Every structure is written in C-alpha cells, then in structure tokens.
C-alpha cells in the first residue's frame, strides 16, 4: 500500500505541473489581446447621432450607403498622435471618393481641447463630439485610438484597436466594399 504522503505528493505534483503548463501557455500572450477583437464584427453597426465640431450634426442615417471609417480618438492620447499622419494621408487620397467617408469621434475630451488640436494639426475630415460617451458605449470601445469600418449595408466589417496605418485602413475599407 503506497504511503499517504507519497500519494498526496504525487497528486500535488500533477496539479502543479498542470498549473505550470497553463502559465507557460500564457507567457508571451498579450493579456489585452481580447480588446483587439471587437465584439461588433459581422454585426450591424450601432446607430449614432452626434454633433459635429463645426456645429452641424451627423448620424448613421446621414452616412448610410457609404463605407464609413470611424476613428475614436482624442487630443491627449499619444498613440492617436502616432496614427495622425496616416489618417491625414488616407483622407487626402480618399476625400473625393463619394462612396467612402471618415468620421472622427472624440472620446473623453473637451470641445476646446479638440478644437485647438484640430486647428493646430490640420484635421480636415469631419470630427464629432460624443456627449455622454453614448457612441463610445454603443460601439463598446475600450480606449483610443480605435477604428471601425462599416460597410455600405451598415455592418461592422473590420476594427482595429491601436494606431492604424494607411495600409490598415485600405485593407479594412477593401473588405467593407466587398461585403457591400
């Protein structure tokens, strides 16, 4: 009959080994990876109705039928500044394309700070404020910058958490156009 101590030691060893395996699998994996996969992918985009910086309003209805690139950002986040040039470049290449449009939604910032940034950095695409963070909540954003691309049929086709490049945006827009 095996001694009790030995049995307990073996069982403990098995459990510890299993734990070590679990921990080893997790090493190197980014614990924030979940944030990179938007829960909205493949589903209808939430409706929104927001005031623009220039005083007008915009809404999901007004932009329906186009491929919409929605970029959540604000003036104090450093990764947003990192992607700023990519947005500028993409917008200058695509602003005359009536089938596609970009909308920047400001997440957690003041109107004055946004205005200052827009004027200083030469932001020419529509920028909307998000009073009460309703759009941010509806899209389930986790921070900024976060970019969603909506197909003309109103489906969220692609998203990216973190700074985007021109290539990223083009890829996402291409996918949206294919969905139609």
């Amino acid at each position, binding site marked *: 009959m095996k*001694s009790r*101590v*030995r049995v307990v*030691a*073996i069982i*403990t*060893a098995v459990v*510890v*080994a299993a*734990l*070590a*395996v*679990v*921990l*080893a*699998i*997790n*090493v*190197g*994996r*980014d*614990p*924030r990876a*979940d944030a990179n996969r938007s829960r909205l992918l493949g589903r209808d985009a939430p409706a929104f109705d927001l005031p623009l910086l220039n005083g007008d309003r915009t809404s999901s209805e007004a932009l329906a039928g186009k491929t919409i690139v929605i970029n959540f950002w604000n003036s*104090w*986040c*450093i990764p947003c500044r990192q992607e700023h040039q990519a947005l500028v470049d993409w917008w200058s290449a695509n602003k005359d394309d009536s089938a596609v449009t970009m909308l920047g939604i400001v997440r957690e910032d*003041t109107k*004055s700070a946004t205005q200052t940034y827009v004027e200083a950095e030469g932001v020419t695409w529509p920028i909307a404020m998000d009073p009460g963070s309703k759009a941010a909540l509806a899209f389930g954003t986790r921070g900024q910058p976060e970019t969603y691309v909506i197909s003309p049929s109103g489906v969220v086709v692609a998203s990216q958490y973190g700074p985007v490049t021109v290539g990223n945006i083009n890829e996402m827009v291409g996918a949206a156009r294919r969905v139609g």
Partner: protein
Amino acid sequence: MKATLGILALAFGGGACVVGITSLLLGLQRKNDALLAVGRKCVAVLLVSALAAVGIMEWALVSHDFTIRYVAENNARSTPLLFTITGLWSALAGSILLWVLILSGYIGVTVRHFRKRASEPLVIWATIVMLGVALFFFLLVLGPANPFRLVAGGAPLDGRGPNPLLQNHPLMAFHPPMLYLGYVGFTVPFAFAMSSLITGSVGEGWLADTRRTTLIAWGFLSLGIILGAWWSYEVLGWGGYWAWDPVENASLLPWLTATAFIHSVMVQERRAMLRVWNLSLVIATFCLTILGTFLTRSGVVNSVHAFSESSIGLWLLVFLGVCAGAGLALIAWRGDRLRAPGRIDSMLSREAAFLGNNLLFVAFAFVVLLGTVFPLIVEAIQGKQLSVGEPYFNRMTIPLGLALLFLMAVAPALPWRAASGDVLKRRLLLPAWVGTAVMVLTLIFLDRSLPTALAFGLGAFAIAGIMRETFMAVKSRRSADKIGWMRATGRTLAGNPRRYGGLTVHLGVVLIAVAIAGSHTFGTKQEIRLAKGQSAEVAGYTFTYVGSSKSVTGQKTTLSTDIRIEQGGKSLGTYAPSVSTFPNSNQAIGTPSVRTGVLRDIYLTLVSSPNKTGRVTIGVGINPMVVWIWFGGALLAIGTIGALLPSVRRRPGFRVTGEAEVEAQSVSVS
C-alpha cells in the same frame, strides 16, 4: 566602463556561487574541512559582489550615466535624488539586482549565525540550497534581466525618467525593499527544510534555528503589503487600498501560507507532529514567492504593477518547476521517515485551533491563487477571456476572514493539550458578551448587513479576549510577586514576549479586519462641481473651492486646487488635491489629498481641472476607519519585534533545556 565593472561584479558573484556549491558538495562527500571553509568564504565573496554591483548601478543612476540602457529608461536629469536612488528597483532588471543583494545578505547573515555548526550536514546542505537559489538569480541578472546593458547607438541626451507613478511619493523608497526583504527571507527556512529532507534529520532543531528568520521575513512582508495598501490609498487616488490586483494577490499568497506555518510550527514544537505538513508549508511559501515574481514580471496578467517584459517569464517558470518538483520529490522520498505518531488530545485545545487556523489560511490562499490564475486557465483551455475581480474575492474570503476572527477570539483562551469546557466557558464569557453587545449595537444603529455586524462583533470579542488574557496574567503576576501594576505588566510581557508579541500582532490584525469591514460598508463617494469661492455640503462637511495654482519643476507640472473643509462652522484645514503631468509621458497622475481622522478620512481628488467657466469637479470620499489599518500595521510590526525578543527569565538557578522551557511555557500559559 561602469557597465563592464557591474557585469564583472555580477559574474564574480555567480562564480562564487558555483565554486561555493562545488566545494561544499565535495567537502561534504570527502569530509574535508578545508573545502567546507572555501564554501563559506564564497558566501562572503557573494555578498561583496552583490554590494559592488548595486553600488555601481546606484553610481550610474546618480551620475545620470545614460550609456547604460537601464539608466536611460528609468532616470532623467530632472529626476529628484530620492527617485534616482529608488530607480534601482523601479523596473525589472534593477529589481532583480535588488533581489540578488538582499538574498546575498540573508545568506551571509545565516551562514555567520550558524558558523559554530558549520560542519553539520544540515547546515551545509542548507547553504548549498541557498547558494543554488542565489546562482539562479545571478544567472537571471547576468542574462535576461541584465541592468548593465548598453544603449544601442550611444547615450541619449536625457533619459526617459521613471514611470510617473513611481516618482510621485517617498513611499517608493520603502514599499518594494520591504516586500523583497520579506520574499527573499523565506529562502532561508526553505533551504533548511530542503536540507532537513535531504539529510533526513528528524529533529525539530532546524525549526527553532530558522524561527527568527521566518518571523523577520514574515514581518517585513506584512509591512511591505501594508505599505502597498497605503500607497494605493494615498498615492494612486482611486480611493481604495486593495484592489485584488493580480500582483497584490501574488504578494498575499506567501504571506498566507507563512502565517499558517508560524502557527502550525508551534504544534510541531510541542507535540512533534505535523512535520511533513510544516515542511510542505515552508516549501510552498518559497514557491509562492517565485510564483509571485513570475506573475509580476512575465506579463501574463493585467496589472497596474506588471513589468512588461516576458523573456524572463519562462526562466522563472522553469525555476519554479524545479523548486516545486524537487520539494515534492524530497517529500515523497523522505516524508514517511519524518512522520511521527502524534495526536491531538481534544478539539478544545490550542493545537486544534491552530489546525483550524491552518485549514482556513490554506483555503484563503487557495481562493486567492485560483481567482488570480483562473483567467489564465480559461484562456489556455477555452481561448476565451474571463475576469475574476473584487466581487469574487470578497464573496469567498469574507466568510474565511470572519472564521479567522472567531479563532483569534477563542484561541488565546484555549490552553494547550485540552481544556475543560467549564474553564473555557468562564474565560470566554465576558469577551463573548462584549462581542455580542457590539454586534447588536451595530445592527441596530449602524447597518443591518450581517457580515459587517459579525466583523465588528467578532473583532470586539477578539480584542476583549486578548485584553482579558493579558489582564488576568498581569493580575496573577502582581499578586504572586507582590508588586504594583506597572511592574507586573512589565514582568508579564517580558516573561513571555513570544506570547504577548503574538497577541499584539493579533490585535493589529483584528484592527485591520474591523477597519476593512467598516470602510467597505460605510464609505461614501460623491462628486461636487464648484466655482471659485463656491461651497457645497457633503456628509455634514462644507467644502469650499478657494483657488487653484500651477507649479512647474523640471520633474513635473502640477495643477493643484485648494479646498477648505469646514464642519459646524469650524475650519478643518485646507487640502490640495492635484494633478501632475510629466514631460515624457502622456499620463496625467492625480494625487489625492487626505484628511486623516481617527474615525474617518476625508478623501479629495481633482476629477477635472478648471474649465472655461473656472469650475472644478472635486471627488469627495468619506472613508471611515482607514487610519485603523495603518495603526494595526504598526501594532503588527511592534508585535513581531516583541515575538523576536528573548524572554527575560526570572527564575534563578537552574538552566532549562529546549523542551523543558517549552513545557514550562505551556504550563504558565494555561
């Protein structure tokens, strides 16, 4: 040049470990005293190298030597001196260096302490194990966690500076070193436990020998954890002191098993049983310190604390596996030889209470461990992500905590071996009434929730019990020696510092538990928006926004708002919550301003700075009883020091041996 010197020092230290281990092994096998002496000298070399390496790193930091990558990343010219010095442990590589230094220190002190027994296999094997652990950490700091790496492409003009959160408060000088003094200290009892298994020494000697180190390490760890809670409260500004953050949990785990060990070791001292269990507890405590280090440094968990490199993770995991595996293998091999046919006579005895204590603490540790790693398990098995946060931990640990409070109330009155029900009923009657009265009053006047009332009631029960036990002992000493109260108290406490130190620690823990219950149940939070000169009333206090000011230093830019607090027309002072921004980071760090009071704290945070109309939003928190936590922590420290003191024997004449002394204590206590 400094980098080369630093690496050389570390290499020397690592080499000393290797030479030490080899010479000790050979010396043991060949019974060669000269080789054993070489082994001991290597320990001294170890300490000197570690000191040298740390000295060189501090020199590099203070002189802003930005050719070294660690300095460039964690220091800037504008960093104040204090935070330059604490920069040694503000990031991964430097923290391992600190670990190496503290470990070398502990090894040096231990070897010196045992120098008269240096030829015993127990001591030799313990030294070998300690050197083995040191070797691992030296390899870490020479390899993946090397702080002396140079910056590729030459030194930048200015460094990045430490993380803003780590240069905000002088506590940075104390919290990490205290924690490490705790963690690393557990290496010593671990080494002796492994040694006792390897050599098959059956006796209790190693326990008594390492008791002081275990208690010192435990004391430092407790202080480190409480300082961490203080930091969380006073510096981080979210209004709480414990968030069940994975890294906080990682520091709690070895504390829980060490506390269980401190109690069950007393059962082993008196009854020579639970040997295998105690060995397992010590080994588990050490392994949990490594697990904690792993969780903090491998990047597997989301945490405020996490250092963000992952290459070191696998090294630590492998080391953890080796230590746990070796410990389990040794226990499986030797465990049976060590088991003693002991028994506990009665469920109504202090031994039984300690067994209950162990069950509860181990369950507590299991809950904390499971909750912390469960998201990782789910991720590995199912690929989806789950969170385990405060609601889970609170729900599971509150019953355990209440049960522990109950044990703390009852156990000091329980004698060793067995109690007669009558004696117990008599002893506990008054404290139980005090506790019940407090519980009833809480329910009627304060809050109807049962956990709160139980916490307050059991806490009062425990405090009354401790007071009563102490009072009765002092009273009997007074009548026995025919002296006054003061002298009797002094003699009682000095006559058994282990017991009264322990009771003081219990007092501190009870205060902390009661404070936690109180601050959770009765805390409130509110935001008020004020224009300059405007006042608002919250919870009976009037808050007036007096003005704001901005200060700019090389280190940071701070915007602070002055808020005057008044109660009943009387001014309680002006407090200044603020927000700081640091040049190299986009993080804005809020600093709360806390008015500490005996019954409650007023906790002010600056939620949003003056907008265009000059209004500020101030967060007002009323946090009851938080200062009791810090006071409890102080009692904990005092009690630990007391428990370490040798007792003042007032019985002249005969000299007692170890076991007789233990028996005499048990008689005097019951």
